[in-house]
Structure formats: structure tokens, C-alpha cells
């Protein structure tokens, strides 16, 4: 070792809960390896108690986030795109570590940025597209509007960045808050992405990211009675049944649909899956 070679400062990859970056309460971690099998870093291995804490943080953030104006949520989502774009080189490097080729890594970051931009524009259009006045047969004004369903638990697919973004953006754009179990094999970009979220004016707790073993964490998320909906997109088909059964405990909305990673228009199904329609009636008279 020569003295003129600088010793680099490495990042400790932690969880992202309530806007802070805590270690797992369990004190556990697991080694993450690159495409060549070499050691990249230790990622936090979240426990059921981290799931619990993340749900509490998400629930606490829900009233404030859902009450923001859609315009404001849209601005914050666009800010996320800006922050991501600004860190393009860092993400390309991390994605290359995770095994993507140079071109693929660049394309993945670009697509992730573009996806945030796409969803940012949806925030103040969703109610117009998913809601309407109801022409009822009586002296009443009645309208139906979409509202966020609440706390959404997501088990993200394996992809390191675009999959995560594709699962997350449609959840929070409408005012839901999220607890996301990141890609198990490639969790590091997710935590770096949390740094983007933390610097984008997104209120703490709106997104909570956990790294660790899906098989360990997903059942706690599925069974949690204060989680309103479950996105099982990152769960293998053979593993869905027990999780969906656990989700029946409080009748969570369960959604599972492959992320349309390459599509220019990802469609509205993922947003609509985490909406409730509220119908309000009021008499009309003098």
C-alpha cells in the first residue's frame, strides 16, 4: 500500500424509516455481492420490528401527505426526478456494480427519471380521470373522487432501480404512504435512492425502505393490521398464496402485476389499485 493512494470513505447502507437512516434494530446485516461475486457492501437486514416501525412511520405520515394539494405532491415528485437526474453518474456506477452494462445502467437511470416525471404530472389529474359527478335520480349533488387507500406495503421486484421506482411512484402520487421491501439481491441502489428521497422535500415517513430477506419480511407486512394494501409484484407466484391469505386478516387490497419497465406509458392500473372511491351526497335546494 503506497502512501499517496487515498483510502476511500465507504458508505454504510442503512434502512430508511420516517425520514431517518437507522440501522436495523436487530443489528443484523448481510453481504451484498456484485455481478462478479465480489463483496460490495453489507446491507441492513431488517427485522419484523423494523417492519413495525416502518408501518408506524408510514401511518404517521399519511394524514399530512394525503392532505397536501395534488399540485404540491406533483412538485415533490418532480423534485425527486431532479434529484435523481443530478445523481445520474452515481446511480450509473452503482447499477454497474449491481451487474448492468454501461449502456443498460445509463438507460435504467434515464428511464427511472422519466418515470418520476411521468407520475409527477399525474398528481393533479388523477381525480379528474378517476372521479366524476354522478347523475342520480333525485335532488342531490353527488360526486365520486379517488382518495389514497392508506399505508401500502410493497414487495419490490428484483430490478435495482427502475422496478423500485415503478412500484413506488404510483403508490405515493395519490397520497398513500409506503413501506417497501427493496430488491433482495440488489438492495444498494434502493438505499442510495432513499438519499434522493430524503433531499426532495418528501416528508419523512411517506416512503420507508427496508432491505433484507423478502421471505422474512413480507409475511409481517402482509399480516400487519394497519397496512391497507399490499403490492406483491416482487413475490414469486408460488409464494403469493400464503401472503394473500395473511392479507385477508384486515381485507387488504392485494395487487400483483408485472412492472412494465420498458413502456413509455406504464398505464394507470397501478395507481388505481391503491385508490378508494369516495362518493359524497348533498341535497340541492333553497
Amino acid at each position: 500500500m503506497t502512501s499517496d493512494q487515498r483510502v476511500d470513505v465507504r458508505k454504510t447502507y442503512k434502512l430508511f424509516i420516517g425520514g431517518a437512516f437507522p440501522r436495523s434494530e436487530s443489528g443484523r446485516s448481510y453481504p451484498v455481492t456484485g455481478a462478479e461475486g465480489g463483496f460490495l457492501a453489507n446491507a441492513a437486514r431488517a427485522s419484523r420490528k423494523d417492519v413495525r416501525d416502518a408501518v408506524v412511520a408510514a401511518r404517521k405520515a399519511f394524514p399530512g401527505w394525503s392532505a397536501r394539494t395534488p399540485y404540491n405532491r406533483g412538485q415533490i415528485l418532480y423534485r425527486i426526478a431532479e434529484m435523481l437526474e443530478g445523481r445520474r453518474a452515481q446511480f450509473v456506477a452503482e447499477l454497474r456494480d449491481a451487474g448492468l452494462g454501461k449502456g443498460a445502467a445509463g438507460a435504467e437511470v434515464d428511464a427511472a427519471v422519466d418515470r418520476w416525471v411521468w407520475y409527477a404530472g399525474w398528481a393533479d389529474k388523477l381525480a379528474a380521470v378517476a372521479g366524476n359527478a354522478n347523475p342520480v335520480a333525485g335532488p342531490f349533488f353527488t360526486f365520486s373522487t379517488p382518495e389514497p387507500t392508506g399505508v401500502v406495503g410493497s414487495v419490490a421486484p428484483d430490478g435495482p432501480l427502475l422496478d423500485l421506482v415503478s412500484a413506488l411512484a404510483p403508490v405515493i402520487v395519490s397520497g398513500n404512504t409506503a413501506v417497501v421491501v427493496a430488491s433482495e439481491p440488489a438492495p444498494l441502489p434502493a438505499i442510495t435512492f432513499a438519499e434522493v428521497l430524503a433531499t426532495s422535500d418528501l416528508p419523512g415517513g411517506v416512503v420507508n425502505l427496508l432491505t433484507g430477506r423478502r421471505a422474512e419480511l413480507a409475511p409481517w407486512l402482509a399480516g400487519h393490521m394497519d397496512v391497507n394494501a399490499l403490492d406483491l409484484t416482487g413475490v414469486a407466484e408460488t409464494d403469493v398464496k400464503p401472503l394473500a391469505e395473511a392479507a385477508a386478516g384486515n381485507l387488504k387490497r392485494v395487487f400483483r402485476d408485472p412492472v412494465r419497465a420498458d413502456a413509455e406509458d406504464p398505464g394507470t392500473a397501478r395507481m388505481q389499485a391503491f385508490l378508494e372511491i369516495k362518493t359524497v351526497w348533498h341535497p340541492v335546494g333553497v
Partner: protein
Amino acid sequence: MDLFAYAPAPESRDVVDIRPSYGLFVDGAFTDGGGEPFKTVEPATGEALAEVASADAADVDRAVAAARRAYETVWGPMSGRDRAKYLFRIARILQERSRELAVLESIDNGKPIRESRDVDLPLVAAHFFYHAGWADKLGHAGFGADPRPLGVAAQVIPWNFPLLMLAWKIAPALACGNTVVLKPAETTPLTALAFADVCRQADLPPGVVNIITGAGETGRLLVAHDGVDKVAFTGSTDVGREIARTVAGTRRRLTLELGGKAANIVFDDAPLDQAVEGVVNGIFFNQGHVCCAGSRLLVQETVADEFLERLKARMATLRVGDPLDKNTDVGAINSAAQLARIADLAEAGEREGAERWSPPCDLPGRGYWFAPTLFTGVAQSHRIAREEIFGPVLSALTFRTPQEAVEKANNTPYGLSAGVWSEKGSRTLWVAERLRAGVVWANTFNKFDPAAPFGGYKESGHGREGGRHGLEAYLDI
């Protein structure tokens, strides 16, 4: 002083012809069932009305196969325009036979004829009219240019609005191009079987609508059947949970419309007389056998005493008795089992320290009855403030600020409906925005329309019924 006692004004039973026994309606024909037949009882008398077939596994197979065949050969390929015409026909026949069906509903269910005649039946026909119009316009509903049906829908409905719940299920399913196997509740199968006859009068192709009767086991067989593409259930949250577990991990789509414990929030600037009326209608409509019933009254402390006094005075004018009497406001409890559950919860309310009050009323000597009941001094922690009673029992609580009202209203695992009474528009909208409930009635309650989506948040269910949103449940999107 009884200057003006109303003489009995019974609706004639002669307009209905109840047969001694009924079979299953499968593939366009009435057939025997393989299970042990059961009796449906008239709640107002406790006496058996008819014997009804019970579908076993083989019958369920047969019904699903008939629906599949009809889906693949007739209903699926049929143009939306022609499906619409069948649904319009059904709507017209329902209007033509509305008197008969209303009387039959009141006999089998126990609900007042005033409600079956003025609420249930008009809405039943309206649902078919409304959805008939969608059948050839689905491409304009916001679900893509050419949304496809799901296939065969398994539908299980409750006993509180037997024919109306049938309409909520069958009309959108058929409009979207699905075929159905529907199981009515075992205590109220008769109007569903009469509807089978309506389908025959409309020359609906065999197998498009199949009605199978039976108890819980028949329902379990149906929702678990591999041959169905869609499960739709209205009923209790416990059964809904069981069904959600059953379909977990399968390709079957699921919509659920379950229980509720709705808050009816009365502010001190409410139009008080209409609020009293709305609270009464909210809980005593259909004997309180309503999933969206306003079973928790939340009244602002500044008007609580005055409001409760007015409420009691109004409750004293409710006429409880013969469901077929046109002047009856509150009819019979649907079954002995439901009566026992209501009585049990009411006793729990007393034990837990709430004050129980009912107006003086003479209940008939036979059949199943429960006097309209008001509990005051109820705390959030009491069972009667948390559990769905599904009967004519109102729990009154108080609040001090709008924040507290919303907090208490939302403090339940349910989220089906809520009411808010105030003359101040901005506050009404503020409250409506914060209530975690699928339907919010402001200065009104228990209003239904085929054009307005209905359904719950949280443990009150998945999906919506009615309106443009309701179509989603029966389309492959």
C-alpha cells in the same frame, strides 16, 4: 288521546303465488338439488313459507358449467347492443311485476311493504335500466377501447335487500358480458327464484343467469369453484375474510361489500328536524339490517340534550308491526338467529353501562321483533359502539369539536359510510374529506342510486358497485 288511530291497511297477499317447493334454476330450467332441502320462514309469523332445494357440489358444478357454456357460446359473443336489449326487457318486466315482487320480498324478508314498494323495487328496476345502457358503451367507460368481460361470476348475496342485492350483482355482470351463478341467502331465496322466472319471461338465453339456493356450504362451494373467474360477495366481514382467504393466490377476481359501523355526525348548526329524520332513517330503515346503517350517532355536546329529546319524540311515532301493513315503519327481524344476536348485543350495552331506551310499542306475539332502541351515554369502548349490530339499535355518543368528531368516526376497522349534518358548507366538506368511508351522506342518509358508486374503505370491502366505477369489477382490466 287516540283521535286518529290508523286502521290496519294491509297490502293484499293475493298478488303472489308462493309454491310449496322450489328447485334450483340452472341452465334455464328449474331442477332438483342434491342437498337436503330447507325451509324459508316468514319472519313476521315464524312459520315456514316453502321448501327450497339445496345445491350440493354436483349442482354447483352443473351451474358453473352452464354459465361457462352460455358465456362461450351465447352471451360472450353477443353484441353489447343485444345484451342491452335483454337487460332493458328485464327492467321492464321487473316494473310490471313490481307489486308482486314487493309483496313477496316483504313476506320472505320481513321488511315493511312501504320500503319494498318505494325503495327496493324501484331501485331494482333502475339498476337494470342503468346497466342496460352501459352494455354497448363500455369502450367509453374509461377502461380502454374494448374492455373484455371476465367470464363466469360467482355471486353470493345477503338477506337484507334480497332482490336489490341481486340487481346490484347481476345487472353490471351481464352488462359487461359475464354470465352468473348467484346464490341468495338461505333465509330469503324467494325473490331470487321469482327473478329466474323474470329471466324466462325475457327469453334470456339459458345459462346466462343461474340461481342456486342453499346454506353457507353451497356458498363456500361456489366461491371456491375452479371454474369461476370472478367472485362477488355482499355480507358480513367475517365471511368476507373467509372468502378472501379462499380466493387468495388464485386467478379469481374478488369484490366484497361487507359490514359497517357508520357514524352519523350532527353538528349544532344542523337542520335539526331533518337531522332527526336522517338519523331515524339511518338506523331504523329496514330494521337496521343495513350494512351502511348510521348505527353510531355522534352529536355535538352543545345540542346533545335537545337533539336526543327530539329523537326520542320521533322514535315514539315509529310504527312497528305487520310488514304488509302500508303504515308500518319498522317490520320484522329477518330470523331467529339475527334476533338473538341483536338481543345479545343490546344486553351487552346495558351491562357495559349505557342507558337503554325504547318507545312504548306493542310487538306482535309471534314472529321475530325488536323494538327501536336508543343507547345513550355510550363510550367508544363499548361493544355497541364497535360491533355491527345489524338491527334497530342506535348508539349515541357526543363530541366537542369537528376534529374529535372525525377522529371518533374513523376510529373503527370499518369504512363503509358516514353521515354529516351541518348547514355550514365549508365544514361539511372538511369533514367529508377526512372521513375514511366510501359513501358520505351530507344532510341526508341512506340514499342509493345505480349511477352512484357504493362500497367501502378498510374492512368494509373491496371495490365499488354502481356508477361507472362499478363496471370495473366485471371487466378484465
